[in-house]
């Protein structure tokens, strides 16, 4: 029933579709990504997204310097310009013939000298050579092909895409091939690869976190609601205590308590646990309210009258009836976990280098220069936005679908 009503909600279905795509991408992340998660490359620092274009180079001047024997040498000053939809992914080969196979140009290094004797390295495309993108390529080192958001990895050596570098002239040391669909970061790592691996963390943090916090919330809320009285009173005061503490600061404090010797994955699990421990309070309170009203219902009273133990009544009769609300709230709360992880990593308390997560990737953008000159580094923010929005659409849809009044055609308007 719920499903049929949900399917009629177009926004919710769009949200679900986006989430399906995002989760598929991150599950197959290792396979889809052309590189491994931390493959630095000193020659391809901060290169723009090849999907959107490429850099071209212009010589703008020359400077005269002296070598160690006081002979004059002439050095060049270059200027680099971004060209939209030119010099990026294209469909012709080195001989300029059209093919269906996408190609990219290799990057060529230019050392540009200024009049103060300082130089910088500029990477721009070499238009004379086109390297074909190949599919299902084997690479030497093995990596995970598939994993459930970082867990239960299946290892393999195949990548979905890769660059065929055989056509690269072997005598050209200044050419550096690379397939950087969304550009590279400051260490020359492929951003698309980092986003895929980062998604494994950022997208699973919500699911695992909500599972932990809902479990705690169900247990505490169920007990408080069912027993009432003193139990209810003290558990609800505990909940209020947790709600009154500013969440981010509690998280920061708890983060200090994590021992330092843990592996990155264990640290990650601890972060999820911290988020969940802080986050269960409101869910618990809501479930308690539900249970409080349900325990007076006929079937609950009947179960009690027939001699069912408290645990049995709570687990078999009361909690299953809260399921629809729990699913809805769970969906609506996932974005908070995603954003919580983003905030923690951005502040340096969450996932740290060399691991990847969307929040950590976004950390590179806290310098104004990046926003001006390397705007593609904000792409992870777009993915965060997409995931959060999709979860909200889906949650809203689920809430409408689970609302009996909407189902019966009784809106609030009609009621009043």
């Amino acid at each position, binding site marked *: 029933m719920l499903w049929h009503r949900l399917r009629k909600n177009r926004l919710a279905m769009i949200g679900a579709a986006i989430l399906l*795509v995002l989760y598929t991408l991150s599950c197959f992340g290792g396979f889809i990504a052309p590189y491994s998660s931390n493959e630095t490359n000193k020659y391809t620092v901060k290169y723009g997204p090849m999907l959107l274009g490429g850099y071209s180079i212009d*010589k703008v001047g020359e400077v005269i310097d002296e070598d160690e024997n006081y002979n004059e040498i002439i050095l060049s000053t270059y200027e680099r310009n971004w060209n939209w939809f030119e010099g990026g992914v*294209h469909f012709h080969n080195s001989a300029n013939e059209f093919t269906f196979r996408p190609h990219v140009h290799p990057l060529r290094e230019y050392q540009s000298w200024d*009049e103060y004797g*300082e130089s910088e*390295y500029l990477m721009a495309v*070499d238009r004379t050579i086109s390297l074909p993108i190949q599919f299902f390529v084997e690479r030497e080192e093995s990596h995970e092909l598939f994993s459930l958001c970082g867990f239960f990895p299946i290892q393999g050596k195949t990548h979905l895409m890769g660059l065929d570098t055989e056509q690269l002239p072997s005598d050209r040391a200044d050419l550096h091939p690379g397939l950087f669909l969304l550009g590279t970061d400051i260490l020359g790592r492929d951003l698309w690869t980092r986003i895929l691996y980062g998604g494994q963390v950022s997208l699973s943090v919500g699911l695992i976190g909500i599972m932990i916090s809902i479990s705690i919330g169900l247990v505490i809320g169920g007990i408080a609601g069912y027993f009432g009285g003193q139990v209810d009173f003290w558990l609800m005061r505990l909940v209020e205590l947790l709600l009154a503490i500013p969440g981010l600061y509690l998280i920061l404090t708890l983060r200090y308590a994590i021992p330092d010797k843990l592996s990155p994955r264990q640290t990650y699990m601890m972060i999820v646990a911290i988020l969940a421990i802080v986050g269960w309070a409101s869910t618990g309170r809501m479930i308690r309210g539900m249970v409080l009203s349900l325990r007076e219902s006929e079937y609950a009273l009947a179960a009690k009258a027939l001699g069912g133990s408290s645990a049995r009544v709570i687990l078999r009769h009361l909690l299953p009836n809260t399921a629809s609300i729990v699913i809805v709230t769970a969906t609506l709360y996932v974005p908070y976990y995603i954003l919580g992880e983003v905030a923690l990593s951005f502040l340096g308390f969450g996932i*740290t280098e060399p691991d990847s997560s969307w929040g950590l990737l976004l950390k590179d953008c806290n*310098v104004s220069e990046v926003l001006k000159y390397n705007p593609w580094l904000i792409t992870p923010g777009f993915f965060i936005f997409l995931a959060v929005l999709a979860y909200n659409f889906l949650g809203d849809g689920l809430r409408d679908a689970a609302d009996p009044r909407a189902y019966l055609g009784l809106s609030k308007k009609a009621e009043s």
Partner: protein
Amino acid sequence: MSPISCHTSRMLQWNLQATFIWRRRTRFSGLLGFGWLLGFCVWASLSATSELNAQSGDSLQSAQNNANLDSHSDDDPPIRRKRIRRNTKLPEPTPDPSIPIGTPSPAFLGEAPDDAIVVNRTGTYGGRFVYAILGEVETFNPVEPKGATDQEIRALVFSSLVQYNNGDWHTSPDLAKSWEVSEDHLTWTFFLREGILWSDGTPLTVDDVEFSFHAVFHDQIATSIRDGFKHPQTGDLPQVSVDNDRNAVIFTLSRIDSQFLTHLGAVSIIPKHLWKDHLQEQDPTILQQMTSNSPPEMLVGSGPFVLKEYIPAEKIVYQRNPRYWKKDSRGQRLPYIDEIVILLVKDLNLQWQKFEAGELDIFMDLPADHFREATAMEKAGTADLVRLGVSLNTNWVCFNMHPGKNPETDEPFVDEEKSYWFHQLDFRKAINHAIDRDGIKRTAFQGRATAIWSSVTPGNRSWFHRGVTTYPYSVETAQRYLDELGWKDTDGDGVREDDQGRPIRFTLNTNVENNLRQQIGNMISQDLKKVGIDVNFKPQIFNDLVTSLRDSHKWDMILLGWGSGVPPDPANGKNITLSSGRLHAWHPQQAKPATKWEARIDQLMAMMDEELDDSVRKGYFDEVQELMGQNIPMLYLIAANSYCTIKKGRLGNLWPSLLRPQLTWNLESLWIRQ
């Protein structure tokens, strides 16, 4: 048709579609394998056609153009050619008598003393100078300045007997007009200038000087300034006495100290008439005075400025000291600037944005990730960029070679196998060869840095030594060293095992707050992976890092940096070089030098202390650097280039220096162009 059969037929359709796709995929290998990228393919092909159109006509010509980039042909319009100007030494500003004098506000009180220092500058009075510093003021008390911020601020309000000139790297007279040194270099007599007044109008006398030294030398006041005066073995301090007839202060030393003038410059002279009751024999309360809580008018000094207002976490405002005693070449009294505002901004990015918005007049220590914005401002004519060359600050990695045990748990500080690896010289050589400094330079520093092999960077023109052993990047050499040690990858997992079969795996720490270090650390761990060493790179919170460095000694490999002291003399780094030093990172606070070469370094440093001739001292320190280079206890990596930016044409008499504070060390003679 029943619902079930409908379902099966739909499945059949799906199957058909799947096979169809599969066949097509085999036919046009690739294109449909894209699947999820199909959407973009459409417009990519659109753009590709436009590219093709553009290229089809003149593909040959574009190839030629590419070639032309390298060999410039005669037909093209002439390319402007400039000669490289390298700033080896920044020139001292010269006076210009045509500059208007202007009127100071607040005005000066009284007359400058006859004994005043005459600074060879000219300038116009007036204006308000705004800049920002990182962090917060802990105290205004000059007896115990905490941190670099407090020291910079101290120099505005207080003066010393001598002053270090950052511009020409030389100590010059300040409150003392001259000094005499006895034959045995143990008695120093400093003659005080006559007629100098404190900012409240009281005369500054030799008693004030004596009082200030008594405060610093007091047993119960722990200050880092006093440590410099201590005899390294006996801990004796110099004797201070006063000669009222000659208006002189006399210091009697227990040994020859080449750095005596430097230590002297660190002692600010404080007014006795205000603080004499707070220097008790027992439990002196002078450190509780002149803190950031006390009212500004209590901060009486003899420096160019006086404190006007302090708002915690927001700003410090200084105004001209109306009784300051220096004059310029036209006989006008200094300082030129009416008011100085120091904003306390905690975040470097925010500080930069304030500079870009024109709220700040200068921005010192420009980080690499703002360089492009700074050059853009330079080109747009809104800011001047000062290129100071290679900075004196170093970045290094170091292995924990502490052989000790934790007294509480009786566990060794460093695991036995790690200690065994780290003590192998060939292992450290291999690591040094395996680190690609060029890679670090290109990524983290965006090309604006220089590889270094010793604690002295090429920027330090007095102490840089070319003879230090270098370990150029070479994976092959690194692998050869490790192979010769017998540490090979026996089980094929890409990680080498040592001669006892233990995989070479350890942790690299750095502080998580520093983005630059995180990037360097990441590059290093990648480099070491290439030679079969598994490094677990873990950035840590700075406080945790300091705890493990100082107390628990529970770390394997660490990435940190040294900032440079002023003056840039290696004697300032004794904490690092001496085996008993607290910052002797690889094995701190040794009771007795653990190795022969460390003993030799201790000996050389002691010889340096007692030698007065700088060229001989340089010879000693060259040997120290060579010993450090041969034994590589610390792997020095890279030094960034140093830049400062100034609002276009804003300041006159600027004399930028590599030494901190690069632009504001001579604030008394800077003037504001309106």
